[in-house]
């Protein structure tokens, strides 16, 4: 198989396919399992300053073409989490710690206290009050928080952006200005489902975030827009289920992709995607450099 390895956002990846934040990232064992299954890197569940149990159930709605989730950032707090990261790091891939907080100081404190191969700043969870997208939809906040974390750690910092804005490019530019090593797009779309038998919103939190195939076209557009204005790499996430989706995302400008909801189909997805990308490159006689961002060059 043609090598897909390379450096993306300051991390050396064997393959440009990464386990997305919040997906099977609660325990060190499951992070390691994803790495052993072939993930190029693994991102943890987002952790913060204090333990949270998360929202009451139901926490997910399973749709034909996606998932709506409102987990509510359950996490044992960064204090309990170093151990899980350490177990995760016994696996063959770098571990990226996803962190959240209510502002620069909280973010910096959590980052300073954890040892990981990189950090991903969750400025984009759409269903946690005063956190995630609620602060991450303002470029100012994105820039400040990124800068604060960059000053606190000496490993790469990735910034995960919300698509629930008029222009995601402003957020990407703010992250770059703040010193981010890469941006990750997109987090889930604000969404809701209602039970027509009873009239109750299905999620315990009433609403949540939409992921899976349904959002892929929105993610592709976000990645295309971001990669058109940024100098730092864009990591594409949203609805990637197979190698075709990954290739499309890379053509839009993603240097690497993350996979979340598709893990419902099991851990095999990492290898399938990597093999599929490699054979497509072989068939077409393209290099990775030629693949990434090809769509923009086609219409230039």
């Amino acid at each position, binding site marked *: 198989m043609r090598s897909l390895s390379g450096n993306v956002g300051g991390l050396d990846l064997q393959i440009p396919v990464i386990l997305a934040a919040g997906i099977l990232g609660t325990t060190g064992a499951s992070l390691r399992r994803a790495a052993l299954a072939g993930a190029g890197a693994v991102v943890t569940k987002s952790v913060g300053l204090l333990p949270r149990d998360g929202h009451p159930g139901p926490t997910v*709605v399973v749709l034909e073409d996606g998932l709506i989730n409102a987990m509510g950032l359950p996490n044992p707090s960064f204090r309990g989490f170093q151990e899980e990261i350490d177990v995760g790091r016994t696996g063959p891939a770098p571990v990226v710690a996803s962190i959240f907080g209510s502002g620069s100081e909280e973010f910096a404190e959590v980052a300073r206290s954890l040892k990981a191969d990189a950090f991903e700043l969750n400025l984009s969870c759409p269903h946690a009050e005063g956190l995630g997208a609620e602060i991450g939809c303002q470029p100012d906040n994105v820039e400040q928080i990124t800068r604060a974390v960059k000053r606190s750690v000496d490993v790469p910092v990735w910034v995960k952006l919300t698509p629930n804005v008029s222009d995601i490019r402003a957020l990407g530019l703010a992250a770059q200005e703040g010193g981010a090593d890469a941006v990750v797009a997109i987090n889930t779309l604000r969404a809701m489902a209602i039970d027509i038998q009873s009239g109750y919103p299905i999620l315990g939190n009433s609403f949540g975030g939409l992921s899976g195939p349904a959002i892929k076209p929105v993610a592709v557009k976000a990645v295309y827009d971001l990669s058109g204005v940024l100098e730092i790499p864009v990591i594409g996430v949203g609805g990637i289920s197979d190698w075709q989706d990954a290739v499309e995302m890379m053509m839009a400008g993603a240097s690497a992709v993350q996979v979340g909801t598709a893990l*419902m189909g099991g851990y095999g997805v990492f290898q399938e995607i990597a093999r599929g990308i490699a054979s497509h490159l072989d068939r077409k006689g393209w290099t990775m450099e030629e693949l990434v961002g090809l769509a923009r060059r086609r219409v230039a």
Partner: protein
Amino acid sequence: MREGAIGGTAARATDGVIKEVIVESDAVRTFCFQEPHSPWPGQYMMVWVRGVDEIPMSFSGPDRMTVHAVGEATRALFDLQAGDALGLRGPLGNGFSLVGEKILLVGGGVGVAPLAFLGDEARKAGMEVTSLIGFRTASDVVLKSRLEGLGELILTTDDGSAGVKGFVSAGLAKVDLEEVDQIYLCGPELMMWDVINRCRSRADRIQACINRYFKCAVGVCGSCCLDPEGIRVCAEGPVITAERLLEGEFGRYRRGPSGSIGSCQG
């Protein structure tokens, strides 16, 4: 409605209208639904008590679940009666597999519920079924007559108020394990752990239906993952061969809703 495809049709939420509520004991009731599902014993459903919470419940028959009231959602369930409805997602997970000719069911508390369902299927398949079930005290005993109808039954109570006095393990002595092809376990974790430990040499012939904190129930959130392999209990379990439980968190600790580690008591 376009729910369900990604997780298979089982992940689709359906409206479960209660047909009958059977009082099994003070704290345990069986809820029968108007529409049966097509579960296999050991599979479970996510039961949405609207306005309260969604919790995992084993099937105790194709059309029913048997619930022990222990907290908010299970108590809210007890307020419901025939005609009321719940949101159901299921059947989910992997159930027991029937192996051999003579099987032993070992259950504690409400853990006997999926075993009774399994016993029904084993009898249909012509197997010989022995049940060993334990409760704290005589008034906690549930599903006894259903299990008696399947074959030999050994009952234990912690206080001796019915059957053999002592834990389930006390009853194990009464069974000739050499005669048993497969052991099926369901109940409090420390009870299951005790039985597995006593039968380590035959751990490959023990299937345990285990509990972890379930949130998504479709294998993505990571809430239910089991050390050291990271088994997703909701999707790959809840029935797991005891062999895979010997060297890890099972019987030692368990994670709560936040992911933090706690005791595996209860």
